[in-house]
């Protein structure tokens, strides 16, 4: 009873925080401030998932919210400026529609089965089978991984394709050849050892060398990579897997790009190689499916990969998770390259 009251209290508290944060995001006009507040909403969301015991989802929220999303938002703001367009007229219709839909949704929750009850449809449909059979059938301790990567491997293949498409789409829209001359000028300036115009502080205040982030990033980058790979290979045993690992790995590269500049990072991993990696990840995933078909099973049926079906499941899951990880990491990186490579410096500082 004690713990139940506590869990209820925590859930309610988090809900209030979530709603307060979201409402504040809606009311601020400065997009930069909205970005920072979205970070707070993401933290609260991760805590909510933790409280609901959905560790894998919380992990994804943590990796994306902490490492990537803020940086990508700021990259976007550097493209479009931080001030929301003013003079947007208030109109009653959208508000009325939103309120009506919200009211219907709240009414609908009364018909929902009680929270956490064992007779819920979600608990009686396929879940019991997963819970009972997957330890012997798949043999992976983390049941989420066996559901995502094996039982619903086809779905996950679709998700990877979505990320692949997102990466390619951003690339097509944002990375058309332009400003060739600017790039060359920048490179010239760098060769001569002079400060390019992009690296002059907007207000002229402060030191030119930011030693503190520089050194700390140097110390931490290898550990970020190892942690990402640890998450990649331990998705079978605990929270984690290809999606989270890919994001963490990309965060390491993004940190490097923030400190050393885009050019140097692109020399470490060029955009072309990143593009090849996006495709390679999807191909690895699909390839496992093709191989399993060639060996006489269905698409993505890992049982046939090895004589022992459990070992076959294991190896199949490992390989497709690797494919997922590669695609996600490369796609995040390509999106970052595309956004940041295009941005001109903004000349006005936000408040």
């Amino acid at each position, binding site marked *: 009873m004690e713990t139940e009251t506590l869990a209820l209290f925590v859930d309610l508290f988090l809900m209030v925080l979530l709603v307060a944060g979201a409402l504040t995001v809606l009311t601020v006009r400065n997009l930069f401030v909205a970005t920072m507040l979205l970070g707070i909403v993401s933290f609260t969301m991760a805590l909510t998932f933790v409280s609901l015991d959905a560790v894998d989802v919380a992990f994804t929220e943590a990796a994306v919210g902490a490492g990537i999303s803020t940086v990508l938002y700021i990259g976007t703001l550097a493209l479009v400026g931080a001030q929301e367009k003013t003079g947007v007229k208030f109109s009653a219709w959208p508000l009325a529609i939103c309120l009506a839909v919200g009211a219907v949704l709240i009414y609908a929750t009364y018909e929902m089965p009680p929270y956490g009850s064992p007779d819920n449809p979600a608990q009686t449909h396929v879940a019991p089978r997963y819970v009972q059979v997957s330890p012997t059938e798949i043999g992976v301790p983390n049941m989420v991984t066996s559901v995502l990567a094996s039982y619903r491997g086809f779905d996950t293949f679709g998700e990877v394709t979505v990320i692949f498409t997102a990466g390619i789409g951003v690339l097509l829209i944002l990375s058309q050849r332009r400003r060739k001359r600017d790039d060359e000028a920048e490179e010239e300036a760098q060769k001569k050892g002079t400060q390019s115009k992009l690296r002059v502080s907007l*207000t002229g*205040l402060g030191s030119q060398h930011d030693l503190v982030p520089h050194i700390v990033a140097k110390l931490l980058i290898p550990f970020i990579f190892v942690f990402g790979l640890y998450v990649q290979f331990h998705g079978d045993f605990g929270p984690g897997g290809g999606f989270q690992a890919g994001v963490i790995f990309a965060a390491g590269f993004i940190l490097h790009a923030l400190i050393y500049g885009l050019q140097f990072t692109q020399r470490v991993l060029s955009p072309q190689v990143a593009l090849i990696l996006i495709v390679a990840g999807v191909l690895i995933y699909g390839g496992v499916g093709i191989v399993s078909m060639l060996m006489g099973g269905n698409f993505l049926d890992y049982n046939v990969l090895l004589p022992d079906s459990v070992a076959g499941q294991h190896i199949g899951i490992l390989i497709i998770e690797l494919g997922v990880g590669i695609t996600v990491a490369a796609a995040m990186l390509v999106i970052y390259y595309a956004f940041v490579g295009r941005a001109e410096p903004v000349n006005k500082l936000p408040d």
Partner: protein
Amino acid sequence: MDLVLDIITWILMLTGCVLLIITGFGLLRLPDLYTRIHAGGMADTLATFLIFIGLALQSDDFLVTAKLLMVIVFVFFTSPTASYALAHASFVAGLKPMLDTTGSDQRDSADPDEGKD
């Protein structure tokens, strides 16, 4: 022996809780950004240390203890870096710190226009 460990955990974590509350209080109460950064620093350093050491005393798995210590080390590396980045960014943007006042004219620096040039 277990009782001693439990008591130590209680002391450590309760102190951490008190520090956390003071931190939150300081974030709301202190007059300007730079002083609030100091308050935030309390939660980043000592409160994190105390609470995680308290947890580490309770874990019987060596690997869990190792992970807790790793979190402490990483937080001790990254949080001052983030604080520096924030303080430096606001300094570069021209936000003037409020200097040596006795609390009567606190509202001066909390003016949003300070951030602009």
